[in-house]
């Protein structure tokens, strides 16, 4: 084992130490901001450095087998053995770099973004804690250890969404995120139980090794397991039907949205599916379901993104939509493709969020200066921002091109890779053509709504108030710096996994080979003629261009009115703005009935009424009532006493004889 791989525990421990230090500061001396920045960012940079070293060590290794580093026995009972162990392999290496790298950048950005917040130390404590759990999720060598990270990131998401806890909306959103995640986790748990029952282990290496013997292809058990895993992944990665928490999660600070709700945590579901690729490969039906869920989510979320006014909501639905792509990718067997999109998405979506954050930051400062209470996130209050924030404007356009799929940028290659595989699978079963088509339409919509976002935000006249405009300014360098780095990533990350028709193709695919090779036994080879591939790329390019052009043509930023003057939406627009009323439907069908039933039926009627009232107190009452009757029988009249006596006598004599 290369020495540097052995350092991997540092990647886990460093952020945790940061959390402890910052947490302590937040309780003891919250005003020590510079120490917090130093610790908070420092541990991340260090962790990133170690991560690079670890991956470098791994890349020197030729065997390709995963390294499992066991530290202690966690839960060992009977046949169950769960070790506190980390696993370093090609997949976790990719994730590790992305997570620590993007996190480090976002930490830096946060130094600027959050500097005026009274909860500054707490913020960094939570953020460090998040990285700790995320790294654990990525590195965990078994399902349960991964689950620790899995739930842990959910916890941090909860804490950070509710960071400004004094607002009920924020606290609600945090709670919703946690609960939705928990619903998904339920599936994760069930999957673990099933896996353990079938294979007798929960460690990745052992499970995947045993899988070919333990399961029958397309058998009930494996299908059940993969469905359960899908449920877990859908919760974390905000797929239908558990996606509703993600848009609400935008209530948190914007860097959090960038880190947790765009770049890292929400991709955990994709990671899970990729990690368990052998299981999904053995359950083709589940894979189709995964792909379908992904495609539908991609399309559905994209429609909602079309009409959102809140800049972060647009990005949130965009994230949901892109996650759908990733699911589509891993669902059609393009595990590397899915991971590839995950990586590129991490760059450009983080960039988009941070960029929007920097816009919001500027607007917020302006409103703060004029004591205005307008919504700093509503695009109708923006417009013409390019004048004030040139850097932000530029990098945002880079990211928009990337996500829209303009050729040459990272998003083009990653999205195309997924769609190409989906199309190729159409050869096996026509349903994949449909999925491909949905992906393409979603891409069109993506291009459209992203352009819309850019147009409304940066172009046209400024709809920010007169007084406020004087206060608008570009963000400080600690914020723009990371933006630039991410922009570079958004542009060049595409080279990681170029299509087969280009030179140096499929580096990432090759890199991940040791992890995904098991599943290759169960997936047909994808064959796509070079011409088809070119054709598909052309279609993708056309779609992207069409979407962007359509937006430019159809939308008139100069006619837009500021939020308070804007007319109410109607018809389908309103339905889209209200996100197809899904939240309301959930509320009416599930949340309210559950609470109502719990309160009125279970508690007040059954618990207090039936069990406690009728049975417990009822029996006590009955006994007492009988007692009172008996007491009333004691009339005090001797004649009656004598009568009872004699009747007793008669009965007793009868009984004796």
């Amino acid at each position, binding site marked *: 084992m290369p020495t540097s791989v052995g350092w991997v525990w540092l990647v886990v421990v460093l952020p945790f130490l940061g959390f402890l230090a910052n947490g302590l500061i937040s309780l003891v001396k919250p005003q020590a901001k510079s120490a917090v920045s130093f610790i908070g960012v420092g541990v991340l940079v260090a962790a990133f450095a170690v991560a690079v070293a670890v991956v470098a060590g791994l890349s020197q290794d030729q065997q390709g087998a995963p390294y499992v580093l066991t530290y202690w026995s966690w839960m060992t009972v009977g046949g169950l053995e769960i070790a506190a162990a980390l696993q370093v392999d090609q997949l976790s290496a990719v994730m590790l770099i992305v997570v620590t790298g993007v996190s480090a950048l976002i930490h830096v950005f946060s130094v600027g973004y959050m500097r005026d917040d009274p909860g500054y130390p707490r913020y960094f404590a939570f953020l460090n804690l998040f990285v700790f759990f995320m790294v654990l999720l990525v590195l965990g060598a078994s399902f349960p250890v991964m689950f620790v990270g899995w739930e842990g990131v959910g916890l941090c998401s909860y804490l950070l969404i509710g960071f400004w806890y004094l607002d009920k909306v924020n606290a609600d959103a945090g709670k919703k995120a946690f609960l939705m995640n928990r619903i998904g986790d339920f599936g994760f748990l069930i999957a673990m139980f099933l896996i353990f029952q079938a294979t007798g282990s929960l460690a990745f290496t052992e499970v995947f090794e045993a899988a070919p013997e333990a399961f029958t292809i397309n058998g009930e058990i494996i299908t059940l397991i993969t469905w359960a895993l899908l449920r877990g992944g859908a919760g974390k990665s905000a797929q239908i039907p558990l996606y509703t928490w993600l848009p609400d999660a935008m209530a948190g600070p914007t860097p959090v949205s960038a880190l947790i709700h765009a770049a890292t945590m929400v991709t955990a579901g994709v990671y899970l599916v990729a990690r368990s690729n052998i299981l999904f490969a053995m359950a083709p039906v589940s894979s189709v379901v995964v792909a379908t869920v992904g495609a539908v989510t991609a399309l559905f979320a994209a429609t909602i993104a079309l009409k959102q006014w809140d800049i972060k909501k647009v990005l949130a639905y965009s994230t949901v939509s892109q996650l759908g792509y990733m699911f589509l990718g891993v669902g059609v067997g393009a595990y590397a493709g899915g991971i590839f999109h995950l990586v590129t998405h991490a760059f450009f979506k983080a960039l988009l969020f941070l960029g929007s954050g920097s816009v919001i930051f500027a607007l917020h400062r302006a409103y703060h200066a004029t004591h205005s209470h307008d919504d700093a996130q509503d695009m109708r209050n923006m417009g013409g921002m390019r004048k004030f924030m040139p850097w932000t404007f530029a990098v945002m356009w880079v990211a928009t091109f990337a996500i829209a799929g303009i050729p040459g940028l990272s998003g083009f290659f990653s999205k195309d890779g997924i769609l190409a595989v989906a199309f190729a699978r159409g050869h096996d079963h026509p349903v994949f053509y449909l999925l491909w088509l949905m992906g393409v339409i979603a891409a069109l919509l993506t291009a459209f709504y992203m352009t819309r976002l850019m147009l409304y935000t940066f172009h046209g006249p400024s709809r920010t108030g007169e007084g406020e405009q004087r206060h608008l300014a570009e963000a400080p360098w600690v914020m723009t710096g990371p933006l630039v780095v991410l922009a570079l990533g958004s542009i060049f990350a595409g080279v990681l996994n170029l299509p087969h028709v280009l030179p140096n193709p499929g580096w990432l695919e090759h890199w991940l080979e040791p992890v995904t090779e098991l599943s290759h036994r169960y997936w047909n080879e994808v064959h796509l003629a070079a011409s088809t591939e070119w054709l598909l790329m052309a279609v993708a390019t056309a779609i992207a261009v069409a979407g962007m052009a359509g937006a430019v043509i159809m939308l008139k930023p100069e006619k837009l009115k500021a939020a308070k003057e804007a007319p109410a939406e109607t018809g389908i627009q309103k339905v889209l703005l209200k996100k197809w009323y899904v939240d309301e439907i959930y509320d009416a069908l599930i949340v309210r009935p559950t609470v109502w039933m719990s309160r009125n039926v279970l508690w007040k009627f059954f618990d207090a009424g039936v069990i406690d009232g009728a049975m417990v107190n009822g029996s006590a009452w009955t006994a007492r009532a009988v007692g009172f009757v008996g007491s009333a029988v*004691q*009339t*005090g*009249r*001797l*004649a009656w006493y*004598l009568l009872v006596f*004699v009747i007793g006598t008669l009965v007793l004599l009868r009984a004796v004889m």
Partner: protein
Amino acid sequence: MDLLGSALAVSAIIFSLGVAGVLLRRNAIIVFMSIELMLNAVNLSFIALAQQLGPEGQVFVLFVMAVAAAEAVVGLAIIIAIYRHKQTVNLDKINLLSG
């Protein structure tokens, strides 16, 4: 002629009449007299049995008489005592204690 069975039967009847008297009457003294009736009935049984079983039965009757005498003394004293409080010996009116 064996009168044992008949005597016992007569005894039983008188005993039952005594019980009936106790149930029927509200006057404490008459109730008490009914009880005396019961005791007499039992005595009759003893005497009848003694004829066949030995003199113990007769001795028994002596003791019962002593007891009856003692009871009469105490009982009547008690009845006088309650009469002093209530100016009546009607048992239906002696019901301060109940419940």
